[in-house]
């Protein structure tokens, strides 16, 4: 009997089916990957900031002190709130970062999710059916792509009232073609696969086939693109503020903080660098998680996540087995 591997339990025999057991496997896979764990922790912290931050620090984040502006970071002289320094109006950068996470995520997450969902579903549908549905969809994507999204933003500003919903919509619409096109391409290839044919012979409907066979293969790529889109959306949102339809002060978002601090990059680097770092860290965490998910979701690659850190450990194990 081969020894079971350290840290991995033997599955119950017969294997426990059901969603609970599957979830447990995912947890185990996640715990095995230190980087993915770290990414999850970071994302949870960011989410926590977004939810409770404004309640705890909302006041501190807007309290100005015009006589103590641009205090450098990493000093506790002005109290813990100013460890990350103060901005050009003497506000606590730390508090602003925390409070801004709420607004930032409430724009970026829906924008990315909406474009991802619409784009990928549409793209998979178009690619699966091919024919005119595909052509028309692709031409629509071309049209949206050729459209300057800034123009859309300005129109929204003039025709509708500027609001968070509108920012999200502008950003989402502009990004839809990206997912649409990527999903279409892969889906068109997948629909000719034999296992899709097999599903057709059961009478499985096209949507069910898309959900069961096309999406699991197409989505990992799209997730990768989507996670990197996060930072793009966060930064673009700030350029919409410039037109008056983005986040308006005294509300704050990371993108806006970066944009405002941009000027002071030479004199007070921390004003732009910390929110920028927040964006980078969040995006990178999301990407790390996405690439973990990509391996975890692929049964052919999943085993890689169960590899012990060193290859030598692997050999030792093999000897043990033989003994």
């Amino acid at each position, binding site marked *: 009997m081969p020894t079971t591997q350290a840290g991995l339990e033997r599955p119950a025999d017969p294997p426990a089916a059901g969603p609970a057991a599957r979830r447990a496997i995912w947890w185990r896979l996640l715990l095995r990957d230190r980087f993915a764990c770290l990414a999850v922790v970071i994302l949870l912290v960011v989410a926590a900031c977004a939810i409770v931050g404004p309640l705890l620090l909302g006041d501190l984040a807007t309290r100005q002190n015009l006589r103590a502006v641009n205090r450098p970071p990493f000093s506790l002289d002005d109290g813990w709130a100013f460890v990350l320094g103060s901005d050009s109006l003497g506000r606590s950068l730390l508090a602003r970062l925390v409070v801004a996470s709420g607004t930032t995520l409430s724009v970026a997450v829906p924008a990315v999710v909406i474009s991802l969902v619409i784009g990928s579903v549409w793209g998979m549908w178009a690619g699966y059916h091919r024919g005119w549905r595909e052509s028309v969809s692709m031409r629509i994507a071309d049209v949206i792509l*050729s459209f300057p999204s800034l123009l859309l933003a300005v129109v929204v*500003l003039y025709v509708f009232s500027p609001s968070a919903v509108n920012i999200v919509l502008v950003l989402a619409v502009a990004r839809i073609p990206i997912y649409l096109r990527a999903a279409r391409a892969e889906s068109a290839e997948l629909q000719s696969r034999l296992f899709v044919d097999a599903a057709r012979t059961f009478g499985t409907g096209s949507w069910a086939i898309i959900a069961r066979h096309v999406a699991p293969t197409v989505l990992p790529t799209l997730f*990768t693109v989507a996670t*990197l889109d996060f*930072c793009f959306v966060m930064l673009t949102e700030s350029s919409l503020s410039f037109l008056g339809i983005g986040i308006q002060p005294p509300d704050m978002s990371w993108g806006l903080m970066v944009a405002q601090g941009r000027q002071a990059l030479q004199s007070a680097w921390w004003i732009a660098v910390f929110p920028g770092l927040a964006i980078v860290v969040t995006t990178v965490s999301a990407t790390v998680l996405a690439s973990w998910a990509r391996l975890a979701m692929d049964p*052919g690659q999943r085993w890689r996540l169960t590899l012990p850190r060193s290859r030598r450990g692997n050999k030792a194990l093999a000897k043990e087995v033989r003994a």
Partner: protein
Amino acid sequence: MLTFLRRRITSSAIPLVVVILGVFCLARLTGDPANLYLPLSATPEMRAEFAARHGFDQPLYVQFGEYLAQVVRLDFGESLRTAEPAAEAVLRAFPATLQLAGATMILAILGAIAVGSWAAYRPNSAADRIASFTSTTAASMPDFWFAIMGVLVFAVALGWLPTSGTVGALAWVLPVLTLLIRPFGVLVQVVRGAMVSALSAPYIKVARSKGAGELRVVFGHALRNAAPPALTVAGDLTVGLVNGAVVVETIFGWPGIGKLMITSILQRDFAVLQAAVLVTAITIFALNIVIDACYALLDSRVRQGVTT
């Protein structure tokens, strides 16, 4: 192939008109340009006269009809802002952008292929981690950080590169690098993902069984199979560069179409905006046709889908 091209080109005509129509109408929803072009103290009569001179007083469909008629005669109108023909402004700005976007994409694609394949060769290994981490970090960095820091370090402190401008090969370095980071990061991720799948396909084993070296396996066999998703995403990124390299064009004083487009939106310079969008739209359509042709070249299965 020729029929494919012909069909694609004709089928792009309607969307193209839709784009122009959309831009035309939306632009006119963005407020009256008279405020910008008439002095602050302009009287209502002056405004009315301004509107009449530029045809803004007519119903939208009449304006559009006239515009289309002009476009057919290759007359794209005159810039409100600079009083030069819109076509001239656009055709001047466009090559700059194309050069920049082209150089960037070539480097991004080559780099991403190298780095992404390297990362995919052993998924989850240290090499993979390093490649993915650095590329995504770079890609999620605000681009102007990169740009301004680059200028401060390489131009001001070290004096190796010019701060900005378009003269000389060295002037390309910073703008291209700044533009590069995002497409590069995204592409690395996409190439990596696609390569992971491609490298686990059965035909890879067959290639190895012929004694093919690893380079041949990765680049000769896996890459072409991994290409389609990367190609799609690369296409979209190129589109992004064609009409969205604003930050770089602004910072480095690169007189490109992105900046022109933004200026003309903010300045309600309709004629230029329309001409610019038309040119970029044509480019984007053409780009997508090229990409589809590439799919077909890469994969005969697609090619057959095309001919049946």
